């Protein structure tokens, strides 16, 4: 298997070509823009968080590379309907998986779709592409929680 096959395996390509939760939310609790200064890729993340702290809806509008788009798409599926607390845990786990140089951080069963992105870890410049949606979500959650108070 060549490196490229590894990086661009089926799941990533599927999410790249058919990104889930692609679009906007009119009355979003939070709307956040994320930029990758390396390549200029941008994405806008929309969040609806309920009174009791559940992510009711998440939408992304992204123009980016395959890794960036796929990562955002998978992220939206992983956090949809989750509590803010749980979403933060998922973000933490994903970032650990990407950034931990010492060991392979395992994913919980319900997150196994994200496994497809593990290969990106081998390409240091692309890790930023994969993390952009997640860091943007982290900002979005902070904004949504601040807006509620």
């Amino acid at each position, binding site marked *: 298997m060549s490196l*490229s096959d590894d990086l*661009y395996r089926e799941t990533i*390509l599927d999410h790249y070509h058919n990104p889930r939760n692609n679009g906007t939310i009119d009355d979003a609790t939070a709307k956040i823009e994320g930029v990758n200064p390396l*390549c*200029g*890729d941008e994405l806008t993340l929309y969040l609806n968080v309920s009174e009791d702290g559940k992510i009711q809806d998440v939408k992304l509008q992204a123009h980016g590379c*395959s890794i960036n788009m796929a990562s955002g798409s998978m992220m939206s599926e992983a956090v949809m309907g989750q509590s803010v607390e749980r979403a933060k845990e998922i973000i933490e786990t994903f970032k650990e998986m990407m950034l931990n140089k010492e060991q392979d951080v395992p994913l919980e069963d319900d997150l196994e779709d994200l496994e497809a992105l593990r290969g990106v870890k081998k390409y240091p410049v692309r890790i930023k592409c994969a993390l952009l949606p997640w860091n943007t979500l982290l900002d979005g959650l902070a904004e949504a929680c601040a807006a509620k108070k």
Partner: protein
Amino acid sequence: MAQTSKDIDSKTGEIRADFAILDRVIHGKKLVYLDNAATSQKPKAVVDALVDYYNNYNANVHRGIHTMSEEATAAYEGVRETIKGFINAVDTCEVIYTRGTTEGINLVAQTWGRINILPGDEIVLSPMEHHSNLVPWQVLAAERDARLVFLKLDDQGRIDMEHASATINAKTKLLAISHMSNVLGTINPVKELAQMAHAHGAVVIADGAQSVPHMACDVQDLGVDFFVFSFHKMLGPTGVGVLWGKKQLLEAMPPYQYGGDMIASVQREKSRYNQLPWKFEAGTPNVADVIAAGKAIEYLQTLGMDWVRDHEVELTAYAMQKLGTLKGIEIYGPRDAKERGGVISFNIKGLHPHDLGQILNESGIAIRAGHHCCQPLMKDLGVMGTARASFYIYNTKAEVDVLAAALCEADKVLGNVALR
């Protein structure tokens, strides 16, 4: 003189032997280095000059009376003479060593600019400027309450000269323009633009970062007031470049940084500054890299800048034709290779440049992907970024073929989007 493609190929073969790095293998494939607009590779003569300096006559310049300091000073100052000849400066005192293009522009902005740019003045720029020839002027304009005004491009990325002649007017205090675009490859008509600017009493700075490495540049013929470039893009080391300026302008400017080397005499309360060019060279300079940069120029002079240009025009024309046949490709900038440098920016429908760059790397091909420090231009082009292949003296048509084949392959890896 017209050269046949066979002449060019045999000479390129000899040139390649001087660049050990070109034998590198990346992911099991022979390196195809097409990122020359970012930085060029360095021939043996340049690397050897660095080693020779450090092994045999490493010493500080301008101050020692010992043999090695004299040798180092002679070598370091001698390069000014080489540069003077290379760009046809009037006097070596107009040749100021910098860290590179970026520092040269900042120097002019912070010394000449702070004195000469007044509230209400206009600074005219092209829309294709590298961030280094844009951000310093944004900061200066904000500080001095001046305004940035932009020229217009036609659909081939060339400056609209009619619009330019209306935009450059009595309010214009400075024209800051790249000689060759690092994205579009466009060679701008700097000479004509400088004449327009001078007719209104404005000063002209040209960014030669992409032109000096690839074509003969004559500062007197161009008629500009300041000219900047970097050696790392022209076979030399990183961390060293040149600001050339007209003597009377440089003399009227305050120093850029203060300290050792740039002074004539120092008292407790005040100092007298050194004469040109040392007034602008505070502190121990980049001796080794300047000396090696001299070897880079000599290497180019041996080839002849006309040969360099001919070689790249031929390669660029071939590449534009070859890549132009790929499905879904858009190539930016002038269509005629004679109007452009060996920089080809492109996008393939449905393939993000970042993905392209990564997949080409698997085939040993080094290109650049992204905004190329030209975000405003990307916005004008309506893209997030581009892929960019850029050539130099050692590149061959065979390498262009490898690139074209790998681009077709990339499309397959990413699911034949371009072909849908």
